[in-house]
């Protein structure tokens, strides 16, 4: 299943690039800035570059007003079907240019004509008209997206049809329009986009499902989504279908699963009604998917699986914070120890291929271990402390998270601390005490405190290994000095 990469989930060209040379790093910075400013707009463009007529230039020219009018007229009134189709193809090529898009939307009656062609009885004209709309949907100008408003009711109507290529096109077009303009979303919701998607999600076509997931993910990312969109999504049958698409097994399609995993993430992190999702079995489905991912990561070479792992980790982590997770007796619904094994396999994969995702994996580990003696015991019994410590040098953020997980274990008492010492923990702590980052050092001090409390024998070894000197380095630091002093006293008295 994982090796059959259909659809668009393929090894991404950038994964080596972004963290490699300097140019991609500049791109990465720009994107992070865009994300911080909430300007990160992702759109999909299905551009059919199949060479059609011979003699056409490789690069489509910008069309002027006369040419746009001419092509529209030919498409609408031509006598030969091929001629009409050809006119729309030429128009579509021109619409790849923002200038042509602007010319088009400023031309009176142009959208009306295009909508007329979109709803014509000539199937291939209809398809070409839809492709023209799709080009327009890719515009970065919200005025262009808004110019497409007259077409939306038809795009939605066609989602209930049966031509899978056409439905796919309509979905990507809708997804692009949704992300560009709030006016479009304000119209699509009363026009019934949610029931249309709920009906369409029952399609057996993988390409349609992937497109639907994309469109839905764009809808869910809208700023007004928590108040205006997510409640109706949750009230529909969409969540159950989404979870079905995420169930591991022979029917799981990675491209489709990626889209719906992101959809789920946007729903869950909006915290509208997560208990409902837990009631639908989200935790166990996602847990099983995590196991599956870990298995796949071991077998397949760079299948882009981190694209699916990321949202799954986020969903699980956020869901684990819900009170509904606890059943009677305070037992977590997610109790399978294999989840911890799977998570570490993924952490290793991230360590090698995608270090920026380590914090997300460690976030899940924190949420698993924080209130669970069982998972803490698993980490000990599966010998995962040493691998965890190997992550300390990666970055300050990762260090803090690793130390936090270790604190989760240590705070459960002497039975746990006995298993943490002797071992590589103390040398690792002495090493992190040498860091300059205050948060890393602060977390190290917390861990030391717990270790000294529950495992007093560790104090002697600490002193022997120049622990006091390590502490002294930080005794002037405002945020640390009280704890440094307290530990010094413990060590000297012990």
């Amino acid at each position: 299943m994982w090796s059959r990469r259909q659809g668009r989930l393929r090894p991404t060209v950038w994964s080596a690039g972004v963290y490699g040379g300097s140019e991609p790093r500049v791109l990465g910075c720009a994107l992070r800035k865009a994300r911080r400013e909430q300007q990160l707009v992702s759109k999909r463009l299905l551009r059919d570059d199949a060479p059609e007529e011979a003699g056409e230039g490789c690069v489509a020219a910008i069309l002027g007003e006369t040419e746009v009018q001419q092509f529209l007229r030919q498409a609408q009134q031509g006598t030969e079907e091929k001629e009409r189709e050809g006119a729309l193809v030429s128009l579509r090529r021109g619409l790849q240019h923002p200038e042509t898009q602007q010319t088009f939307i400023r031309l009176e009656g142009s959208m009306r004509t295009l909508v007329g062609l979109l709803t014509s009885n000539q199937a291939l004209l209809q398809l070409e008209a839809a492709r023209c709309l799709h080009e327009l949907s890719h515009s970065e100008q919200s005025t262009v997206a808004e110019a497409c408003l007259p077409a939306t009711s038809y795009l939605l109507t066609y989602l209930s049809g049966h031509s899978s290529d056409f439905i796919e096109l309509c979905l990507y077009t809708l997804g692009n329009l949704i992300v560009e303009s709030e006016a479009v979303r304000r119209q699509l919701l009363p026009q019934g986009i949610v029931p249309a998607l709920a009906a369409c999600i029952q399609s057996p076509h993988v390409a349609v499902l992937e497109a639907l997931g994309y469109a839905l993910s764009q809808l869910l990312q809208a700023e007004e989504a928590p108040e205006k969109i997510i409640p109706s999504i949750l009230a529909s049958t969409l969540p159950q279908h989404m979870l079905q698409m995420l169930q591991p097994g022979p029917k799981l399609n990675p491209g489709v699963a990626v889209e719906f995993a992101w959809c789920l993430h946007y729903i869950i992190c909006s915290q509208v009604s997560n208990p409902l999702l837990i009631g639908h079995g989200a935790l166990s489905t996602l847990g099983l998917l995590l196991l599956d991912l870990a298995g796949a990561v071991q077998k397949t070479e760079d299948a882009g699986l981190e694209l699916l792992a990321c949202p799954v980790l986020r969903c699980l982590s956020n869901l684990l914070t819900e009170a509904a997770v606890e059943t009677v007796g305070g037992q977590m619904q997610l109790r399978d120890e294999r989840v911890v094994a799977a998570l570490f396999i993924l952490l290793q994969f991230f360590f090698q291929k995608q270090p920026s995702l380590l914090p997300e994996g460690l976030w899940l580990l924190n949420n698993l271990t924080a209130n669970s003696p069982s998972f803490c015991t698993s980490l000990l019994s599966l010998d995962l402390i040493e691998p965890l410590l190997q992550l300390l040098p990666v970055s300050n953020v990762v260090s803090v998270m690793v130390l936090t997980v270790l604190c989760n274990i240590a705070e459960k008492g002497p039975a746990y601390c006995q298993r943490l010492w002797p071992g590589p923990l103390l040398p690792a702590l002495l090493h992190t005490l040498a860091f300059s980052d205050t948060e890393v050092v602060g977390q190290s001090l917390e861990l030391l405190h717990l270790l000294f409390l529950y495992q007093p024998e560790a104090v002697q070894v600490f002193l022997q290994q120049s622990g006091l000197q390590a502490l002294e380095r930080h005794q002037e630091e405002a945020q640390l000095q009280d704890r440094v002093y307290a530990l010094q006293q413990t060590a000297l008295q012990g």
Partner: protein
Amino acid sequence: MQLPPALCARLAAGPGAAEPLPVERDPAAGAAPFHFVARPVRFPREHQFFEDGDVQRHLYLQDVIMQVADVPEKPRVPAFACQVAGCCQVFDALDDYEHHYHTLHGNVCSFCKRAFPSGHLLDAHILEWHDSLFQILSERQDMYQCLVEGCTEKFKTSRDRKDHMVRMHLYPADFRFDKPKKSRSPASAEAPGDSGERSEGEAMEICSEPVAASPAPAEYPLPSALVRVPLEDLKATRRKPNNADRLRKGVGGSHHCWAWHPPWAFLRPSGVAALGARPSPSSPSLSLSKWHQQLSSEAVRDPQILETTWTHYWEGDVDGLSPPAGPTLRMYF
């Protein structure tokens, strides 16, 4: 990062939870100046923590543009004609044929041969156009169902329904898939033909004068060779749009206009036995459907009926769902 060799074996083995070691906390653990408390952490939507993963997601989506360049050209086959009786379209690519078939032969009314984009719209058409019991009942109760999937509102007339769709669902006033049934009178100047007598290749319902605020027809007219008018009272002549009209309009001037016909025009003199209405399993709320299933049907119908169980929603009508409380962000890291 080295993992213990037994880990993979553990993953492959069956489910299970570790028997937890005994928990025994000392109150001094949380005593000042130390403040560690084990707790799960929640990150809300826009949190900076998600930055890296979000950027990667964005690049993945953008990357599709590069990948699409690899999409192979549509495979061409020797030209073949559509096999549906009366359809003479020729194709040289299977994808094109698939789209043509689904569009024009997918959801076809067996009475008037009109094709619809979805089973839902076909159902509504058959009920409203070919079911005399519907017409009788519609005089006493609201029968015209809103065409937006999931909306359960019903109306006395198709005009009321159209007003509802325009007002509540923001549908265009000239929505093409909501054509009211035409009158019997042959000389209706504003009525574009709806018996399907038009030549292949014409766009829908183009006529010279716009009729404001009238709904559009639903069908894709089929080649005249195929069309027959099976029922006496639907034999109203249609004004066939001509090229002269279109040319007069120019590009920006094509108008799609539809006639409004009073409900009495739809009453049939003949009995219900001649009806042969097809069952409409996707409209269980209509009291007619079960009764009509008993009647014989020659309906050509795409078997894939998309059922929806969605409840109606539009802006301003969200019941009982308050906005979420502010996220409890516990910034631990």
